[in-house]
C-alpha cells in the first residue's frame, strides 16, 4: 500500500514530463520550452519512469502483496527487509526530487560517458545517488521474493503448481539480483570519474567510453525484462480467469519465463550496433537477440490459444490483458527489426526505437499493471471498482496509446532522431497525431486514479472471490487478515482449475 501510493506519485510526475515533451513536439520549432529544459524533461521522464515506476511497479506493489498469498504463506520471508526496501525507495525518491530542485539533469536516463562525466552541467551526482539507492531497494525486494518462493511454499505446492505470476516474479527477482549491482557500481564509477577523474571511461588515460555502455546495458537490457516479465505474469493470471479455462501449455509458459530471464542477459550489445563496438561482437549479439524473441513468441501464441474453447467475459482486467497481448505482439515484432543488425543501423536512436520500447513498457508493463490493479483491487482494498468506468478507461488508454506511439514508428523509419526538441518541418503531421494521442492517454490515466480513489470509500464491498478465480489468494478474506490465512492451505492440484463448460 505504501508502495502503491509512492509509485503512483512518481508515475504522474514522470507522466507530466512526458506530456510536456509531447506538447513541445507538436510543432517542429522550439517554442514551448528551451532546448536545455527539453533535455532535462526527457531525462527526468526516463529516470522516473524506468527506476521509480516500471521496475518497482508490479514486483513491489503486486508482488509483495500477492506472492505470499499465492504460495500460501503468512508473509514475505523477511518482512522487515520489505519495509527497509520501501524506505530506500523513498530515500531514492528524495534524491530524485532534490535533483529536480537543484535544476535537473540533462544526460538522458542512460548517463552516457563522457557527456555525463565531463561535459554535463546538471546535478548528475544527485540523480546517480537516487538511482543507486533505489537500486538497492529493488535488490532487497528481489531477494525477499526469491527466498519466499523457495522456502515458504504451502504444503503440496510444488514448483509446477505455482501460478505463472509467481514464476514471473521469481525470474524477475533473479534478474534484479544479478543485474542491479552492476548498474550500481557503474554509477559509482561515473560519480568517481566526475569528481576524482578516475579515468576508466576516459580514452586519454587508457579508458573507454564504450566500457560504460557495456556495463550500463548489462543491467539495462535485462531491466527491460524486469519490467515486462511481471506483466506477462499478470496477463497469465487474468486471461485464464476470464476465459474460464486453464492456460494453454503451462509448463512451456514457465520455461519461457526462465528462458527470457536468462537469455535476456546475453543480448545487451544490441544497444551498441553503431557505437563502434567490434563487428563480430555485434553479430553475436544480433543472433542472441533473435533467440530471446522465441520464448516471447511462444508466450503470445499460448495466450492466444488459451482463448480457444473458453467462455470469455470482457471485464476491465480482461480488456487490459488482451490489449497487452496485442500491443506486446506489435512491440515484439518491431523488436525483430531492431535485432536485424543492418536495419538497426538505420533505426537505432530514432523514434522507431522510442515506439518499440514504449509498446513493450507502456503497452506491456503499464497495461498489465493497471489490469492487475483492477483484477486484484477487490482483494487489496476490499471494495469493487465501477465496472463501466473500468472498461471505458481501458478502451480510452488503448486508443490513446496507439495514437501516441504508432505514428512514432513511421517517424523513426523516416529518420527522425530521438531526443530532438526541433525536427524537420515535413514531419509535423505525424508528430501532431502523436501529441494528440498523448493528451488522450493522459486523460485515460487520470480516469482510473479518479474512480479507484472513489471506490476506496464508496465502492461496493467486495466478496472474497468476485471473479470465481482459483488462486490461493482468493481463498482468504478481502482484504486478507493480518497473517493472510487463518489456516495455512494445502494444495493438491496445479493452478487454473477452470472449466469453461460450467
Amino acid at each position, binding site marked *: 500500500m505504501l508502495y502503491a501510493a509512492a509509485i503512483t506519485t512518481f508515475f504522474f510526475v514522470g507522466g507530466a514530463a512526458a506530456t510536456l515533451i509531447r506538447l513541445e513536439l507538436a510543432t517542429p520549432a522550439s517554442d514551448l520550452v528551451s532546448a536545455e529544459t527539453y533535455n532535462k524533461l526527457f531525462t527526468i521522464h526516463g529516470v522516473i519512469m524506468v527506476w521509480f515506476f516500471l521496475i518497482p511497479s508490479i514486483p513491489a506493489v503486486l508482488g509483495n502483496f500477492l506472492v505470499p498469498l499465492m504460495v500460501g504463506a503468512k508473509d514475505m520471508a523477511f518482512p522487515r527487509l520489505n519495509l527497509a526496501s520501501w524506505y530506500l525507495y523513498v530515500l531514492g525518491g528524495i534524491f530524485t526530487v532534490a535533483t529536480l530542485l537543484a535544476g535537473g539533469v540533462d544526460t538522458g536516463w542512460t548517463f552516457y560517458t563522457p557527456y555525463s562525466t565531463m561535459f554535463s552541467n546538471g546535478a548528475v551526482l544527485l540523480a546517480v545517488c537516487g538511482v543507486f539507492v533505489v537500486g538497492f531497494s529493488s535488490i532487497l525486494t528481489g531477494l525477499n521474493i526469491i527466498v519466499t518462493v523457495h522456502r515458504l511454499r504451502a504444503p503440496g505446492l510444488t514448483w509446477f503448481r505455482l501460478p505463472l505470476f509467481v514464476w514471473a516474479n521469481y525470474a524477475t527477482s533473479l534478474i534484479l539480483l544479478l543485474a542491479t549491482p552492476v548498474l550500481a557500481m557503474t554509477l559509482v564509477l561515473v560519480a568517481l570519474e566526475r569528481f576524482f577523474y578516475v579515468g576508466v571511461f576516459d580514452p586519454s588515460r587508457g579508458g573507454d567510453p564504450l566500457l560504460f555502455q557495456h556495463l550500463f546495458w548489462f543491467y539495462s537490457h535485462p531491466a527491460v525484462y524486469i519490467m515486462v516479465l511481471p506483466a506477462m505474469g499478470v496477463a497469465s493470471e487474468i486471461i485464464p480467469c476470464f476465459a474460464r479455462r486453464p492456460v494453454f501449455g503451462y509448463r512451456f509458459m514457465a520455461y519461457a519465463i526462465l528462458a527470457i530471464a536468462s537469455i535476456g542477459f546475453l543480448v545487451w550489445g544490441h544497444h551498441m550496433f553503431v557505437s563502434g563496438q567490434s563487428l563480430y561482437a555485434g553479430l553475436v549479439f544480433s543472433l542472441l537477440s533473435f533467440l530471446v524473441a522465441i520464448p516471447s513468441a511462444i508466450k503470445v501464441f499460448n495466450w492466444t490459444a488459451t482463448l480457444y474453447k473458453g467462455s470469455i467475459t470482457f471485464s476491465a482486467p480482461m480488456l487490459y490483458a488482451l490489449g497487452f497481448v496485442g500491443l506486446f505482439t506489435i512491440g515484439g515484432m518491431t523488436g525483430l527489426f531492431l535485432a536485424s543488425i543492418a536495419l538497426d543501423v538505420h533505426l537505432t536512436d530514432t523514434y522507431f526505437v522510442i515506439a518499440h520500447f514504449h509498446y513493450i513498457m507502456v503497452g506491456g508493463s503499464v497495461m498489465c499493471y493497471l489490469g492487475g490493479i483492477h483484477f486484484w483491487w477487490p482483494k487489496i482494498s476490499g471494495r469493487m471498482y465501477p465496472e463501466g468506468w473500468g472498461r471505458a478507461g481501458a478502451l480510452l488508454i488503448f486508443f490513446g496509446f496507439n495514437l501516441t506511439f504508432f505514428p512514432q514508428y513511421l517517424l523513426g523509419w523516416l529518420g527522425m532522431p530521438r531526443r*530532438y526538441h526541433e525536427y524537420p518541418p515535413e514531419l509535423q503531421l505525424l508528430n501532431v497525431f502523436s501529441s494528440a494521442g498523448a493528451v488522450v492517454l493522459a486523460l485515460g490515466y487520470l480516469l482510473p486514479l479518479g474512480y479507484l480513489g472513489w471506490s476506496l470509500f464508496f465502492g461496493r464491498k467486495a466478496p472474497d472471490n468476485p471473479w470465481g478465480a482459483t488462486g490461493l489468494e482468493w481463498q482468504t478474506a478481502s482484504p486478507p487478515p493480518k497473517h493472510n490465512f487463518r489456516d495455512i492451505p494445502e494444495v493438491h492440484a496445479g493452478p487454473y482449475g477452470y472449466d469453461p463448460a460450467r
Partner: protein
Amino acid sequence: MNATTPLWALPAASDTASRVDALFLVVLAVTGAVTLAIFAVMAVFAIRYRRGSPAQRASPPTQSRVVELTWTFTPLAVFLCFFAWAALVYGSFYRADPAAMTIYVVGKQWMWKAQHANGRREIDELHLPAGQPVRLVLSSEDVIHSFFVPAFRIKQDAVPGRYTAISFTPTRPGVYRLHCAEYCGTDHANMGGRVYVMQPAAFAQWLEQGPSGASLAAQGFELFRRLGCSGCHDARSSVHAPELDGVYGRTVHLADGRTIVADEPYLRDSILLPKKDVVAGFEPIMPSFQGQVSEADLSALISFLKSLQPGGPSGK
C-alpha cells in the same frame, strides 16, 4: 539542387539504402502477416467463445507438445534467415572498397567538420560524388556523437579518443539531411546539416575550389610559421625559447620544480596558457594565443608538434 529532399519521401540515395530497404520490406511483410494472423485468430476466438455463445467447449486442450514445438522452431528458422541476411548487409557497411575515397569527419558540440584528402574542409556540409565508394572515418572532439544520413540508411557513432569508420556508395545526386543521432548536449537537435551528392565532374570542380593542404600536420606547420612560433622556437633564433624537436612525450622540468610529461593537454595549455607551466631555465615571455587559434588549428598545431620526433619525418 538546393532544396533538401523531404524526409517523408525517404529517398534511397546510396547502395546501402537499397540493400537495407529490401531487407526491411521482407521483414515487414513477414512480421506484418504474422501479426495480422494473430490478431485475426484472437478476434475470432473472442467472438466465437464469448460467454453465453453456443460454441462447443468440451475438453479444451491444455497442452500439446507437437503444437508448441512447432511454434518454437518455426520462428527460430525464420529468425535465423533474418539474422543471416541482416548480417551480410551489415558486413558491407564495414568492408571498404580499395578504391574508396576516405574523408575524415570530426564531431564537436554541436557541428560536423569534414576534411577531404586534398585538405578541403567543410562544416555541417558534406559534398560527395555520385557513384564513388566513400569511407568516412569519424572521431569526436568531446562527447559521443552519431553521424546519421537517413537517405543513405547509415549511422555511425563518433567516439572521442578513437576512430570509427563506415563505407557506402552514394548513388543519387541530390541534397539530403544530416543529423546527429547520439544525444550530445543542449543543441543536439540542431547538430546537423546537408549532404550534397554531386555528379563526379561537378564534384571534382568543387573539390578544387577553396583552400587545401597536404595534411593536418602540414597545415600545422603552416600555422607554426604564420603565427610566428618559428621566430622564437627555431634553433637559429636569437630568442631564448625551448627547442621543440621531440618535445612530445618528453618529461619537462618546470620552473617551480615540478616535472610534467609534454602530452597533448600540456601542449595545448602551453599555447593557450603559456604562464601556467613555465619550463625551467626560460623566461615567461611567450604570448598567449587564447582566442587566436581555433580548435581545428590547435589540433593541426599539436599534430605538427607530434610529428617532430627524432628520426621521424618532420614538416621542415
